[in-house]
């Protein structure tokens, strides 16, 4: 039996654990404030908050309930818009009303939830951060300017927080209902009960991480599948430094990457690259291992970690083995992995002072979109000479790939416009893009050339741009 807190009430359900939270909320609990827009995590109308204890901390994150299996909710606090409602309007709701930031209203509860998620996070109270919180919410009516204005008001609400714990602060200031202040002990009590994920199902299970890809691809069958939920397994979470290595648990999320102190120390830019990956709620749910096994030819994390020469630890529960990410893909959506194996960890060598790293992605829409082409560039540079190079590219072949010719050519050479152009030309010989909804072959070829140039223009601003571009 699955147990969690839904708004201010403990609930339990015997529904299949593969059922999505959205259906449970709307059709079992009859909480109709959570809306259905797309069922693929692309509109945010079904956004809810999920709170969980991580150590002593109660941490809330926004999830798209359409992609959240009930199996990932054991012992957590699920909050829908009904759970934010007070007698009058709460200040978040008031801000939206005051700025006329709701028109047809269908997307509005999702925006309210995302902004509530911002209030419950420890993010700095800036307008930018408030706007970033709704980066996964689509509105077709307002044109967003009124929503920006409302978000600014919400940021203003938090100005006096001064390091106070968000749940306490929002409850005290009546930004959210009082009961938020008492959730922590209730979750502790729930945690003492048996966990769901102890049981390993018979046969070959469907591994489920964050569900953000599976529930899009296999929406119709997921409910009935025998699932093994990996998302909450403590051994699969966390990002740590072990000597010169960064070790990432397979179920670490994109948000975990963005918030990792290890990554922040060694790759100050990494966070900004991750802003190009999907949206806040999807980053909160999507796991690193999930991005790898989904085997999209254009997975953003895959492209980044390919260039970083990441290593995978695969385990079938009994035996573990190690493999380079660059050897993981055999063909389109074909992995060097048995059905029983899952990725338990990923590690890579942390960079030193000579290392430079850049990620480029162009999609139709800059945010919350799948790339037309993406690329990462990992260079070691010493006295103006490249001593090691690793260029990766997505969207230019059936698998996410390294560009060995273009990369190898650079090694041992001094940075110049000429060698970059030669590397660009070599890259063209080792890609095979196809025309599809994300762009024509002609475009993808041109775009990859431009992105390689963009890597160098970003990493070496002293280069002659005109020479490189014409």
């Amino acid at each position: 039996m699955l147990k969690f807190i839904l708004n201010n009430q403990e609930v339990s359900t015997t529904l299949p654990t593969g059922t999505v939270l959205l259906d449970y909320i709307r059709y079992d609990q009859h909480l109709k404030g959570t809306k259905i827009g797309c069922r693929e995590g692309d509109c945010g109308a079904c956004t809810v908050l999920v709170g969980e204890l991580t150590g002593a901390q109660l941490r809330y994150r926004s999830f798209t309930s359409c992609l959240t299996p009930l199996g990932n909710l054991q012992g957590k606090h699920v909050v829908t818009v009904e759970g934010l409602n007070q007698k009058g309007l709460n200040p978040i709701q008031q801000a939206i009303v005051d700025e006329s930031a709701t028109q047809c209203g269908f997307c509005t509860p999702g925006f309210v939830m995302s902004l509530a998620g911002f209030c419950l996070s420890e993010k700095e109270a800036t307008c930018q951060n408030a706007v970033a919180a709704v980066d996964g919410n689509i509105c077709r009516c307002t044109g967003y300017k009124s929503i920006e204005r409302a978000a600014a008001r919400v940021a203003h609400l938090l100005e006096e927080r001064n390091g106070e714990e968000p749940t306490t602060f929002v409850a005290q200031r009546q930004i959210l209902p009082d009961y938020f202040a008492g959730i922590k002990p209730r979750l502790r009590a729930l945690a003492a009960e048996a966990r769901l994920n102890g049981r390993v199902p018979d046969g070959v299970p469907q591994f489920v991480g964050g569900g953000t890809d599976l529930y899009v691809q296999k929406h119709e069958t997921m409910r009935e599948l025998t699932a093994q939920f990996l998302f909450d397994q403590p051994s699969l979470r966390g990002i740590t430094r072990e000597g010169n290595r960064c070790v990432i648990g397979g179920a670490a999320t994109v948000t975990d990457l963005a918030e990792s102190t290890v990554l922040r120390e060694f790759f100050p830019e990494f966070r900004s690259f991750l802003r190009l990956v999907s949206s806040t709620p999807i980053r909160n749910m999507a796991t690193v291992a999930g991005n790898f096994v989904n085997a999209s030819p254009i997975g953003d994390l895959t492209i980044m970690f390919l260039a970083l020469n990441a290593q995978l630890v695969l385990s079938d529960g009994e035996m573990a083995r190690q493999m380079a990410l660059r050897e993981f893909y055999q063909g389109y959506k074909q992995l060097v992995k048995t059905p029983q194996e899952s990725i338990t960890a990923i590690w890579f060598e942390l960079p030193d002072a000579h290392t430079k790293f850049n990620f480029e992605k162009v999609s139709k829409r800059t945010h919350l979109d799948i790339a037309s082409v993406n690329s990462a560039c990992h260079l070691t540079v010493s006295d103006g000479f490249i001593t090691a190079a690793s260029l990766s590219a997505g969207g230019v072949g059936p698998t996410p790939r390294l560009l060995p010719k273009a990369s190898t050519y650079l090694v041992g050479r001094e940075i110049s416009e000429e060698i970059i152009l030669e590397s660009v030309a070599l890259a063209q010989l080792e890609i095979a893009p196809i025309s599809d909804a994300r762009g024509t072959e002609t475009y993808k070829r041109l775009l990859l050339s431009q992105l390689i140039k963009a890597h160098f223009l970003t990493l070496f601003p002293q280069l002659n741009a005109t020479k490189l571009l014409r």
Partner: protein
Amino acid sequence: MKNIDSSTHVKGQSLYLDDIPLVAGTLFGAAFISPVAHGHIEQLYLAEAMQQPGVVRIFTHKDITGENQIGGIIPDEPLLAEHEVDFCGMPIAFVVATSDHAARAAVRKIKAAIEPLPVITDPRVAHAQGELIVPPRTFKLGAPELAWEHCEYVVEGSADTNGQEHLYIETQCAYAIPQENGELKIYSSTQSPTASQRTAARVLGVPMHQVEVDVIRLGGGFGGKEDQANAWVALCALAAYHLGKPVKYVLDRLEDMQMTGKRHPYSSDFKIGLDKDLNILAYEVDFYQNAGAAADLSPAIMERTLFHTTSTYFIPNVRATAYSCRTHLPPNTAFRGFGGPQAKFVMESAIAKVAEELGIDACVIQKKNLNKTGDEFPFGQKAVSEAHACWHKAESLYNVETLRQEVQRFNASNTLLKKGLSFMPICFGISFTNTSMNQARALVHVYYDGSVKVSTGAVEMGQGVNTKMLQVAAQVFSINPAKVRMQTTSTNRIANTSPSAASATADLNGKAVQLACLAIVERLKQVAAQELQAPETAIELKNEQVLLHGEETALDWKKLVTAAFLKRVSLSEHAHYATPEVHFDKKTEKGHPFAYHVYGTAITVATVDCVRGTYSVDAVKVVHDFGASMNPTIDRGQIEGGIVQGIGWMTLEELLYDQAGRLRSNTLSTYKIPDIYSVPQEIAIDALDTDTDNLAILRSKAVGEPPFMYGIGTYFALRNAIKAFNPASPLAFDAPLTPEKVLLGLYPPTGTGATNLHETSLSRVATS
């Protein structure tokens, strides 16, 4: 005044169709749709689906007791395919089961043997093969054939705009509940309750009085739920009527995107001629409208394209011909602007092309040729123009000279980024161009406690029309708006409604509300005159008080209402409004089809990343002709939303059909609409102050569609930025200007010349 729905919206308490509590015994429908765009149905295999758990019945065209027909303007669209399928996504069968899940599972078990027939996706190909929905129409002014020889500059070209998915966040849906005596109550998410009612009655073969359509509100419409809401209403009605059980169908996003029509793609040829002083002397244009597989609203949309041929400009010699071309796409339909934006894009492309060839800024030609009051449109109406006023105010208010210098300086000092600036003047006609539709009704009840309930034919879909209706009633009665409540839009209360469309909903319904309230006020004043023993002319209702010669009396609103009731005076009124002055003769293609025009000017500055081909919009600065806005916050929201939707159409929203006529951008992950980061950094809106009278409700001009066309300015701002990087760029006039087209415009592949990327984009995706 805030939108009256705001509070329930933010609390998640507003009711949309899928939120209506289910009646016990409700069944769920799901459509089996054609997997091919054109073909002959040889065999339909339903047996396996029938065996699925929960399946109650599967309806096909054979089960239709009335007419298998949902075509509004032309009866050319069956509800369920009979022998032929005409587009990918055309409903063939309707499964009804005990759960939504069971219905969809059963749909997946249905098979159809369909002999494929040739597929047309390109309107020009359809035109060449004589596949037209209606005969072509031509609007003419002056004698363009004679004018060319007087032109110093003549330029020809073509321009293309792709379609646009409405992407209302609430998908299409309907819920039919049987009543006694074979009647049905149908909840629908429709902009056009009467059209839904009529369609259901037609398909069932029953009179309209047997069907009630009731609309609470829509989670977005934008034209997509005008005629296109009817099919789901008819399917649920059919099943509910024959099974005697409530039947509900809520389309999932993929179904919605595959099955419903969109904004019409257009491909057009233009020829423009100017004299040496840059006056446009002549303009000829041929519009090829991609109508899709059935008429839907295409003929009316084609007509509006013709009405907006010359956009905001006066051109003395014009010939515009439009062809509504039948292809095998889902029937394309109404979408904010209704064919107008497509015409305006061609006009602006023609001006831009001349300007580029002459090496001058397009705004010089634009400004020179703006229409003036008294100028004749090609359809005979004389302009009452605010075009110059809006343009001049925008120029001075936003310091255009400074802006232009900033852009030039920026471009001179930046290699990797370039900026472009553009002007976009708009002039948009308000009224249904089908004159008979310019009528509306309202029903107003004053209860004897003084509270008021208002019903109209207007459908609330986020545009704030109910708020405006409530304001009208509160203003005429001079009572606190809290005393007034709006009713849902029901065909039982308001009959024979026009759709909530054409930007005219607030005007038409608002005037009807005004008339109804005035009639009640008139009767109340009579009662007050009797009570106060004074002449009616001395009585005034103000702030819930009854004034006599301007002085307060013992009577207030509530007492007066009670007194009237006790005197057996009617406190209810049903009023009818028909727009005066509008008429149009389709034989001569001349008349006065619009109550008035809305004007405005937008200045857009955009930035292109010349390494990556990505872009952003710095600012859209607008002077808009509101008349006198009755609700500035709602109207501002309409303008901001319209601009962003227009920018989406012009930049990133790309419909991709493959050669087999299948939509490839059929999900939100492949069809991208603007998110919060893709909107202009700044949208400035300023009102043009005018005091001229107009036919708008309370002089507050319609605001739904016009601002959409400001978005066209973004295309031209981006184009100018691309040309700043590569003056020789052979960029075609082909929207949307996606990052792909921008990059290929910055770095044109050698040897391709001015390729029309849109034509290739329609067919480029491999058929797999």
